[in-house]
C-alpha cells in the first residue's frame, strides 16, 4: 500500500503530465498526490483556505468543473501544483511544476507541464527527462490539436512509455462507448506518428475513478479482458530507466572536467551516459582515434556501498558519476567522449537533426547558432530546412522556416567534428541544444540522426571475379 514518505530505497521514476487547457491535468496531479498521501496538513489547509476565498464549489456543476472536491471541504486540487501567482489568478499552468511522492514500490518525480500552446517549450522541458508521459484527453472533446502536439513531442523525444488518461469520464456517465471512440482516435494518431501503442485509461480526476484504484463505475474497463488497471499501479510497474537500459549498449562517458590535485593524479570526471566501465577496459577518446586503458575507476562511496561492494566494486554502471584514470599521455579535456573502441560514436561535422523550435523568432536557413552536445559546445550554421511536421495531417511537408513550437528536420554544419549517436540509440549522446550566440537563449531541442552505415558490397575475391 501507499505510504506518504516511504523510506525504503526504491527506484526513481520520472513522470510528466501534459494535456490541453481544462483537461483537468492539475486536478489529476493533485488527485495523485492527495490519494498517495503526499500532501501534508499545512499544504491542504492552505489549499482549503484559498479554495474557500475563491468561492470554489465542486458541487455546483458536477463533472463540468475540472477541479476536485474532497471530504467535507471542497478543495481546488489544481492549487497544489499551480505555484505562481499568475497561474493561480488565471487558473492555468504556465511553467512546469515538479512534485515528489513515493509509494512502497518507487519514488516519483512528477513534472506537471502546461497545456497552452504558448507554453509548449515548457512542456518540452518537462518531457525531456521523463520515463513516462501521462497525456490527458477530455472525453467530451476527444483528440484535439494539443493532444497531437504533445503526442508528437513525446514521440520525438522518445519517451519510453505513453499513457493516455481519458478524463472526465464521469461527465459522460461512465460511458464505454464514449471512451472507446476516443481510444480508437488516439491509437490512430499514435500509429500515424510512429509512437509505440499507448495504454489508454478512462479516469475521473474529479472523483478519483481509476486513479489509484480501479473504479466500480467503469465495470467494462475492469473486466480482465481489458487488462483494466488504475493509473498509479501502472506507473509503479513500468520499467524504469535502469531496467530499460540495455546492457549491451556501448560505453559513452562525456568528460566534464579533469581533476588534477597533484602531478601524479589526472582524473577524468563525468557521468556515464551508457555502458559499463572497469579497470583494464580499453577505451577510445573521441573525436580522434586514440585508444588507451582504464587504470582506475573511482565511484562514490554510496554507490559502492549500495551496489553490495563485494564482487566487482570498480564496475561502474550507466547513470553513475565517476572519476577515472587512463594509461599514457594524450590530449583529453572537457568535451572528449570516452567510448567503446569496438562500437565508437560517429564523428560528424555536418549532420541532420530533428528539432523542436522553441524560440519566438523563426528559424531560417543560414542561422548562426551554438550547438551544445554532451560536454562540448561548438559554433554551427543551419544550412537547410528539410521539412516541418503538419500537426493536422501528421505528415512532413517542405518548409522555408520553422516557427515557434514547430517540429522539423534541419541540416547543420559544425565548426568542428563531434562524436555523436543517433538519438533513437542513445538519448544522452544523440541530444543537442541550439543556442543563440548573442543572448545565450536556448532556441531548440535537437535530436540527431546518424545514417546507418551503408552496407559495403562485399569485395569479390579475385578468384570469384575470374570464375564468374
Amino acid at each position: 500500500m501507499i505510504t506518504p514518505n516511504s523510506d525504503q530505497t526504491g527506484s526513481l521514476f520520472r513522470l510528466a503530465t501534459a494535456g490541453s487547457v481544462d483537461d483537468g491535468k492539475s486536478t489529476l496531479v493533485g488527485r495523485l498526490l492527495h490519494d498517495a498521501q503526499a500532501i501534508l496538513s499545512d499544504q491542504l489547509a492552505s489549499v482549503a483556505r484559498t479554495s474557500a476565498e475563491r468561492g470554489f464549489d465542486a458541487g455546483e456543476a458536477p463533472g463540468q468543473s475540472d477541479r476536485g472536491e474532497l471530504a467535507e471541504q471542497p478543495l481546488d486540487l489544481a492549487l497544489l501544483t499551480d505555484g505562481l501567482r499568475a497561474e493561480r489568478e488565471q487558473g492555468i499552468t504556465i511553467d512546469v511544476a515538479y512534485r515528489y511522492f513515493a509509494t512502497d514500490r518507487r519514488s516519483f518525480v512528477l513534472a506537471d507541464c502546461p497545456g497552452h500552446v504558448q507554453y509548449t517549450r515548457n512542456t518540452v522541458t518537462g518531457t525531456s527527462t521523463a520515463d513516462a508521459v501521462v497525456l490527458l484527453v477530455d472525453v467530451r472533446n476527444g483528440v484535439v490539436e494539443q493532444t497531437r502536439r504533445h503526442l508528437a513531442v513525446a514521440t520525438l523525444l522518445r519517451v519510453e512509455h505513453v499513457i493516455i488518461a481519458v478524463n472526465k469520464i464521469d461527465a459522460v456517465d461512465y460511458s464505454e462507448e464514449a471512451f472507446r471512440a476516443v481510444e480508437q482516435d488516439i491509437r490512430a494518431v499514435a500509429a500515424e506518428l510512429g509512437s509505440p501503442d499507448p495504454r489508454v485509461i478512462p479516469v475521473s480526476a474529479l472523483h478519483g475513478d481509476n486513479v489509484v484504484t480501479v473504479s466500480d463505475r467503469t465495470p467494462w474497463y475492469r473486466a480482465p479482458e481489458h487488462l483494466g488497471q488504475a493509473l498509479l499501479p501502472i506507473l509503479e510497474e513500468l520499467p524504469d530507466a535502469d531496467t530499460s537500459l540495455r546492457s549491451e549498449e556501448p560505453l559513452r562517458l562525456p568528460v566534464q572536467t579533469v581533476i588534477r590535485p597533484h602531478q601524479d593524479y589526472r582524473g577524468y570526471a563525468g557521468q556515464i551516459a551508457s555502458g559499463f566501465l572497469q579497470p583494464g577496459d580499453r577505451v577510445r577518446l573521441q573525436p580522434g582515434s586514440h585508444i588507451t586503458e582504464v587504470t582506475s575507476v573511482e565511484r562514490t562511496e554510496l554507490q559502492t556501498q549500495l551496489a553490495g561492494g563485494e564482487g566487482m566494486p570498480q564496475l561502474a554502471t550507466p547513470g553513475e558519476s565517476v572519476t577515472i584514470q587512463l594509461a599514457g599521455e594524450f590530449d583529453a579535456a572537457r568535451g572528449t567522449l570516452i567510448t567503446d573502441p569496438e562500437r565508437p560514436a560517429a564523428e560528424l561535422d555536418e549532420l541532420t537533426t530533428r528539432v523542436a523550435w522553441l524560440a519566438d523568432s523563426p528559424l531560417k536557413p543560414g542561422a548562426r547558432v551554438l550547438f551544445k552536445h554532451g560536454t562540448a559546445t561548438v559554433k554551427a550554421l543551419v544550412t537547410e530546412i528539410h521539412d516541418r511536421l503538419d500537426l493536422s495531417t501528421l505528415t512532413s511537408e517542405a518548409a522555408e522556416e520553422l516557427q515557434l513550437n514547430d517540429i522539423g528536420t534541419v541540416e547543420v554544419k559544425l565548426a568542428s567534428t563531434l562524436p555523436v549517436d543517433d538519438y533513437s540509440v542513445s538519448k544522452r549522446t544523440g541530444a543537442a541544444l541550439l543556442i543563440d550566440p548573442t543572448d545565450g537563449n536556448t532556441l531548440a531541442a535537437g535530436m540527431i540522426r546518424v545514417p546507418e552505415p551503408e552496407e559495403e558490397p562485399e569485395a569479390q575475391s579475385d578468384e570469384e571475379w575470374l570464375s564468374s
Partner: protein
Amino acid sequence: MSSLARLEAESIHIIREVVAEFDRPAMLFSGGKDSVVMLHLAAKAFHPGPVPFPVVHIDTGHNFEEVIDFRDRTVERLGLRLVVGSVQELIDSGELQERADGTRNPLQTVPLLNTIRDNRFDAVFGGARRDEDRARAKERILSLRDEFGQWNPRSQRPELWNLYNGRHTPGQHVRAFPISNWTELDVWRYIAAEGIELPPLYYAHHRQVFRRDGMIRAVGPHSLPTEEEPVETMQVRYRTVGDMSCTGAVLSEATTNELVLQEVAAATVTERGATRADDRLSEAAMEDRKKDGYF
C-alpha cells in the same frame, strides 16, 4: 541504482557542469542541512582534489551560535575560503532597515546581491529543493538572474535533458540548484547513509523555549519572550535552521539520524509550514522574495 544513488549522481553532474562552464562560481553555505549535503556532494564531485570554489554565508546577525561554530569548523576542515555577507553591517550603515516583525530572513537579499557583485561571482549554488515551496517547484536547476538578481518566472529558459545552458551576458548571473529533486526525506536518508555531521540543534536537546504564533521559539539574545509568553524547558529539535528570529523548533525525542528519519517519514506538516514564520507571510511569499533576488 536506488533513487538516492541516482539523485547523488545527478547532483554531482550538475555541480561539475557549473564549475566547468563558469569562471567564478561560489556556493551558499549556511550550516543548514541542505547546504551541508550540497557541500558534501561538491567534495565528492572533485575528490581527490579540493572543492574548487569559495563558500558564501549571508549572516543575518541572528544566527544560532552552534551553527556559526559548525560553519567555521567545516570551512576549516575542507580548506575552503569563506565569504561572509552581513545583514547587521547593512543595518548599521542604514542601507537596510530592521523589519517591524523582527524577521531578518527577507533582509538577506541585499547583502547576497552585494556579495555576488563585489566578488564578481557568475554562478552561485544554492541548496533549495523543489519540494520545499510551490514557487521553488517551478524554478529551473540553472536559473538565470538579471543584474538585479531577479527571477523572472514568466520567461524561464527551456531546460532540456541534462544539457544545462549557462550562457549569460555581463551583469547577469546564474543560480544553480543541484539538489532540486531531493525531498526532505531524501536529505535525511542521505545524511544517515553517509554519516554526515550536522549542527547539534538538528537533534533532540533540552532548550529554554516559549510559544509564539503557534511556533516553538528558542529564548536567545535575538528572540526574547514578552511577559505573556511563559518560558519553559522542552526537548526539541530543528527541522530547518535559519535566522533565530523566524525559525521554530519541534517537540522531539529524536537524538540520532535514524530516529530523525523515522520522525520525518511520519511527519504530517511540511518543514517550512512547521517552523518558518517568513513563509507564512503570504500565499506567494517565496515567489515574491525570489523575484527580488532571494535564492
